[in-house]
């Protein structure tokens, strides 16, 4: 692991790194434990170039292309790259399983508090299975639930936004309903489309993508307007964002089914605001 992190320094500056976490193997039994860590890298490489560089580094560190989920020396993945979203065949960003895996979210939340909510929403049993190396007991080295941020939900300013982000998280997860009680605020979110809870891995092949605004402007649905539930096979222009008199198209980036339209027609949108949730399954 240290050699891998050293190797990463060739591609840029390692700004932050998490502790090392030991995880019970996922997918296959009878394997040795995995060790996981997450780092923040500042790099000039584009996402695809970075992916190629990581693959080269994996090869150097002894991974051979082989069984998926099988034992290997090292596996290097890009979880997020700024706010880049791609669904290229070779590289999907953010990482499609980012929100499902405790061994990713626990170290990630350690170095980026923005992910603490997602981590705290995971199954506690799964979170407890990810223990920081050097810890003796079963206590995982995770900070307590993100009370600071959730407590702020009662404040009008961020409430809507936080709920929206929770809803988005929920839609992208296997969680069916979620209830949070804090001080004077209580939030309960449920999914309308009924997926039976799937307790065991591997996860079902439901992949919900969020299409986000990549600039500030006014959101306008395409005509005829797309509606929730609608499916399409290929790339399609769903909407556009009007900014500085320019019409900036919003594409579906491939086929899928619209789970929901997250922003009202004609509303102002900010950078990174979710516009559509698409089921790619």
């Amino acid at each position: 692991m240290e050699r891998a992190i050293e190797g990463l320094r060739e591609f840029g500056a390692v700004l932050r790194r998490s502790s090392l976490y030991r995880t019970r193997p996922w997918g296959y039994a009878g394997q040795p434990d995995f060790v996981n860590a997450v780092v923040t890298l500042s790099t000039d490489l584009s996402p695809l170039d970075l992916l190629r560089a990581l693959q080269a580094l994996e090869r150097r560190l002894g991974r051979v292309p082989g069984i998926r989920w099988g034992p290997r020396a090292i596996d290097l993945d890009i979880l997020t790259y700024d706010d880049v979203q791609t669904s290229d065949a070779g590289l999907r960003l953010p990482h499609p399983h980012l929100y499902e895996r405790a061994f990713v979210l626990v170290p990630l939340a350690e170095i980026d508090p923005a992910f603490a909510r997602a981590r705290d929403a995971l199954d506690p049993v799964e979170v407890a299975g990810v223990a920081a190396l050097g810890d003796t007991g079963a206590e995982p080295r995770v900070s307590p639930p993100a009370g600071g941020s959730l407590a702020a939900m009662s404040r009008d300013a961020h409430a809507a936004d936080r709920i929206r982000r929770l809803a988005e998280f929920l839609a992208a997860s296997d969680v069916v309903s979620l209830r949070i009680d804090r001080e004077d605020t209580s939030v309960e979110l449920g999914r309308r489309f009924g997926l039976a809870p799937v307790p065991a891995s591997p996860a079902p092949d439901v992949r919900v993508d969020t299409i986000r605004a990549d600039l500030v402007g006014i959101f306008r649905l395409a005509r005829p307007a797309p509606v929730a539930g609608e499916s399409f096979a290929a790339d399609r222009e769903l909407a556009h964002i009007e900014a500085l008199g320019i019409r900036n198209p919003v594409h579906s980036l491939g086929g899928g089914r619209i789970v929901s339209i997250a922003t009202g027609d004609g509303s102002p949108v900010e950078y990174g605001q979710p516009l559509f949730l698409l089921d790619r399954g």
Partner: protein
Amino acid sequence: MDRRSNTASRCSCSIEGNVIFRKVLIANRGEIAVRVERACRELGIATVAVFSEADRDSEHVARADEAFCVGPGPVARSYLNIPNIISTALITGCDAVHPGYGFLAENARFAEICGDHGLTFIGPRPEVIAAMGDKATAKRVMHEAGVATTPGTGIVANVDEARKAAGAIGYPVLIKATAGGGGKGMRVVEHEADLERAFASATAEAEASFKDGRVYLERLIANPRHIEIQVLGDEFGNVVQLGERDCSMQKPSHQKLIEESPAPHLSDRVRASLYEMAVRACRYVRYTNAGTLEFLCAGDEAYFMEMNTRIQVEHPVTEMVYDVDLVREQIRIAAGEPMSFEQRDIVPRGHAIECRINAEDANANFAPQCGTLTRLEFPKGPNVRVDTHMRTGTVIPPYYDSMLAKIVTFGASRPAAIELMERALSETVIEGVSTTVGVCLELLRTPEFQAGRYDIGFLPSYVKAIR
């Protein structure tokens, strides 16, 4: 994004019956965004904050009437993202943009783009920003205005020209990049033998840093003090100076750490001449809004160095001594109002000192720190001002400058202001990152600071000596 209902209930605001701005976009972050937001609130103007994803939970976002994310953490994609910032101003119905300091504050093109979209840029006219932003042009214009400039040259095209000019000025000379800043493209040349190599490396560094390799030469002023004059000009041709700030306590990187007003041991003759030159310069370029003329002073000599065409970090020092609100005046002036005072109305009183509290490790050459503030207690009490955007639990992201707070104290005399600052810094508790609180306290207690006898060489040599 955040949209609160209190905007709708605001009436259009007016001063003496004239409607000024309804809504201002603050194109900045940190304490200065909070500072501008306060001034707007007092004037009854609604505010729109912009923020990066790293700043979502920031104080400036929480305080504004509306807030829009304009990009990810890195500044090039958020706080310097002109299209997203302008688009935010337009879709929220702003009539003006306050740039704060840093980021887009001295970007003439941004000021121009604001104007093109019917937004008032709260600052000087774009052509003045452009002229003052180019060091060689600024120096030429100031020279024309009759302001003393460091003996030196215009752009020198090649090393032969540089050698000839350096001989005439006299060694040691300084090679400076016309597009320069932060010491980039700057070289001290002690002897003629070193000139050729220094010229080549300064040119190359300037080219690499600013995509503009042009340099000029200046006489090196040994151990100067950095003294700057605060000015304000309005659209009616009124210009006032609001005295000086002594900013000689500078880190090895030339960033200021402690500022004070008035400057200790400045002779009446030099002080009067600095004031007179500052006002003359502003009239010459028909300067509007807030600005600062920086001078290097050594003995009885004072030379213009550069002009900052924006509000400065250390403006509270002047506000304390002159009992004015510079940001409020900036907004009024931009709205076409006359200044609310004339030169004869503003009389300095007492002494003010500012210490910059940065998340930096003073023992590691002031290396910036990031992390989470686990405990935070700022000083209170009479004549203590704290400008900050920090709260307990604030996460300091790696993308931005490391200033956490500015602590300013005011006293009837310099010793009283120093004493109060010692008390204020002793009360300050910041846990989670290393800060400059300790080093500021040490510096206040040095005999040199106590006596007011320090120049820009003091802190770098102090740092070297304690290591």
